[in-house]
């Protein structure tokens, strides 16, 4: 297992390096620093101010090749900083990116954790319910609803939720965020509700399929033959065995709890890590964008490895090596 993990880690490192080079090509060679400087300083900034900005941000160095100081290039600096997690300052407003990440984690988690903690049990229990009542109108209606829910864009849920629950029924503020505990709950209610609606359809349909597949297996028939009731069969036999595919679906998501939900955060005005990415794109803040893409890649690799390890824990038949 250790050997396998090491091998995976080595692959992961190669992937990270590839991501770094790709980011460099995209953000330093394709888009030029002058572009960023213009955006940062505004339309009226004179050329001297632009030049000074480039110097102050280290963008005046040679891109790839510097014959005098081979390591004094933008490429070397970029790779070194990313590997050491020295993220530097935002191109848009000079705020340290590390600080922005720290500020953004809390708001992001306050949406993603309830969404995850409520969404998983909800999807699992709804899937168990429809699987339990398979071939009845509850099952069919459930599947139809799931397919409908899946087919509608998240944006529709967001705008619809804001309009219906925020504007017409006046249950929740239509957007905004305030970490003050006395008002935090009312800000989270709508994005979490919308998030649940947006994801639950696909999850229920997937879990239902898993449960149905499991409940057709021999050991289920054996359990029934031994006189186990439907509820017991579902809870004690089908559920644990169906967890393996469920786990793949779930563990991969865990690292991304930290990066937040881009759409939810943007539309609900939650100052989390997801909206940092969107803001960075809109304001040509490439320094922040590079960091977010890089962290996304790291988290993805971490998620993959976590899934592999989790497999061996829930399924004794799987051996990594």
């Amino acid at each position, binding site marked *: 297992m250790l050997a396998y993990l090491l091998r995976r880690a080595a692959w992961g490192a190669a992937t990270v390096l590839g991501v770094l080079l790709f980011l460099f090509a995209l953000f330093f060679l394709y888009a030029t620093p002058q572009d960023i400087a213009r955006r940062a300083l505004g339309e009226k900034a004179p050329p001297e*101010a632009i030049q000074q900005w480039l110097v*102050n941000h280290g963008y005046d160095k040679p891109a790839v090749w510097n014959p005098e100081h081979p390591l004094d290039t933008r490429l070397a600096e970029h790779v070194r900083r990313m590997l050491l997690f020295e993220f530097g300052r935002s191109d848009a407003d000079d705020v340290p990116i590390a600080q922005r990440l720290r500020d953004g984690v809390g708001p992001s988690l306050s949406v993603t954790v309830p969404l995850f903690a409520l969404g998983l049990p909800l999807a699992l229990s709804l899937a168990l319910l429809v699987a339990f009542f398979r071939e009845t109108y509850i099952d069919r209606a459930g599947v139809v609803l799931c397919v409908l829910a899946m087919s509608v864009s998240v944006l529709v849920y967001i705008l619809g939720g804001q309009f219906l629950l925020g504007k017409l029924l006046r*249950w929740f*503020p239509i*957007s905004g965020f305030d970490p003050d505990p*006395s008002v935090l709950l*009312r800000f989270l209610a709508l994005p979490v509700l919308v998030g649940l609606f947006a994801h639950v359809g696909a999850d229920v349909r997937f879990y239902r399929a898993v449960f149905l597949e499991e409940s057709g297996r021999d050991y289920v028939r054996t359990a029934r033959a031994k006189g186990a009731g439907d509820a017991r069969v579902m809870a004690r036999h089908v559920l644990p065995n169906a967890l393996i595919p469920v786990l793949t679906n779930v563990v991969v998501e865990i690292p991304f709890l930290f990066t937040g939900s881009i759409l939810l955060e943007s539309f609900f*005005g939650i100052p989390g890590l997801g909206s940092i990415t969107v803001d960075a794109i809109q304001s040509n803040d490439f320094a922040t964008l590079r960091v977010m893409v890089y962290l996304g890649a790291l988290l993805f690799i971490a998620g993959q490895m976590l899934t592999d390890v989790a497999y061996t824990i829930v399924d004794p038949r799987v051996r990594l090596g």
Partner: protein
Amino acid sequence: MNGALRAAALVACIAFGVACTNDPYPSADARARVLYVPYSEAPKTLDPQVAYSVYDHEVLSNVYETPLEYHYLKRPYELIPGLVTEVPEPRALGDGRVVYTFQLRRGVHFASDPCFAIGEAGRTQRELVASDLAFAFQRIADPKVGSPVLATFSKIVGLAEFGKRLAKLREDDPSFSSLRIDEQYQRAGPIEGLNWKVTDSWKATNQLEITLDAPYPQILYWFAMPFTAPVPWEAVVYYDGEGGRDGFAEHAVGTGPFRIARYQKRSRIVLERNPDWYGAEHPEWRAPAATYPSEGSAGDAEAGRVAPGLVGRALPFVDRVEMRFEKESIPVFTKFLQGYYDRSRIPKESFDKAASGGALSPEMASLGVQLERTVTLGTYYIGFNMVDPVVGSAGGERSRKLRQAMSLAIDADEFLRVFLNGRGIPAQSPLPPGLFGYEERYRNPFRTVDLERARSLLAEAGYPKGVDPATGRALRISFDTGDTSVQARLRYQFLVESWRRLGLDVEVAATSYNQFQDKVRRGAHQLYFWGWVADYPDPENFLFLLSGAMSQTKGGGPNSSNFDDPRYDALFDAMKDRPNDATRLETIGAMRALLEVERPWIELFHPEDYALTQGWLHNVKATGLTVPVWKYYDVDAATRAERRVAWNQPVRWPAFALAGLGLALLVPGIATYLRERH
């Protein structure tokens, strides 16, 4: 199991009851004298010497103060003393130089801040002295600060040289940069044009003398912009972004009526009354910038802005300003309608609902909402590149007629109607209304739509029906832009279609912003669309955009049309330093007449801002410039609290109906299952 279920149901009910309100603010604030405003873009910096966007200035201008300010109510704009005791008059020296003496008030303090312990252990406050104002200028010259207005203030004798000396010292000796900033500035030597004197004798002085190398009367307007706000050197040293401290760009230490209580710029910014403000410490001074004005201009009396109960009262009226970050315009408008914002713009989507035909809709009026319309001090135009052989001045009469014809094809009214809900007025000249030299009755003969005349001008220019005789096809002109958004594309399509009616083939060349900038720098563009918003209310700030000295290809200036006409430049030189008298008006008229014929620009429109104000917000006057206004606003918090409750009763029955429906779906299913099982 049953118990757990019941408990869960109870918790859900309570949670629904508690969370079930759309009020985005803590209930404790319901009756507080707080101003609630949204902001759509987070400030980039709070460093007054660097900040140059309206989003920065909106916050900054309430926290920092400038030597001069604008009169809140008077139009045309009038400067009043801010941190100084009177608006200085220029004093000419024999050699063409001009001196201004700024007498700063004694007894003005910076807001309390831990940074002042650097100067003296245990100290949390300090008096404002003239050297703090000088420090602001040293910072403008410091290349490391990166101030965008160095070119403007280089008119101060020796300022630019100071910056160069500083850069050289830093380059020659790497350890120089590690010196404290005030020491660095001291070692870089004095600035000839900046002299300050602070004494504590019976007649205390606190003055800064500024010497300009040539007359530049508009410099006074710059003293009402945050660039000239004095900053304490202690704050620049202390807030270095290290060891958990904020950077100076994120932490303001000013002398203003408000100080920043919270600065989470991606969600909320909170300003609170500054107890150390001179207006609060010394109401007996009745300082012009700390007292509600007694005079206004047309319309102020009717709007209750010079009511006897107001005049002469000490500012500010509100205790706190809650700014909330709102990127999207629709949520802002919805919250405004719910009473949670005191001011709002009108989103394009809801424009017809809020305003029709330039007036408030009956629905809005019934809510007690007021509409403020202000023409921004700005001009949007289509520019010709005058060094281009086809459309530029090298083409002589032929190109001039082409430009005139193209100008006659653009319908500004229609453009405004289609793209801006009619928010704007068609421009006749570069000068927007509200500026000296703007004449309401003036009609530019080339800014009406007259396709017949345009076609005959084209024929005279040698392009009959728009056909270029050299190619035998429609004359091809490139419209260069760095904006690739869908909205921009539609706008440009509108213009292209207008010219197509003359037979011209104008092609939109949309590139990245940088490539576009590069084209403009090299003078490789033909047509472009641009706008300019005033820094200060003087015609010079618009007319300089077409002066030869400001030509982009010549010196990198903002004259992107590269219009370079000695007649215009002579008139400009005669106009720029004059006071607003009849001669100046006449000169401006002559410049306008020249532009009318030469057509380096097709003036398109001056944008108009429509802002909605709740009935409980008082003393609001739109300014058209980003200047400190919140200290003049007042809020009737009791009325607001009542309206909010009345407007926001939640509709609860759908929740119960939904729960009932869920049960109705499930119960028969379970019943069927149980029946079949037995």
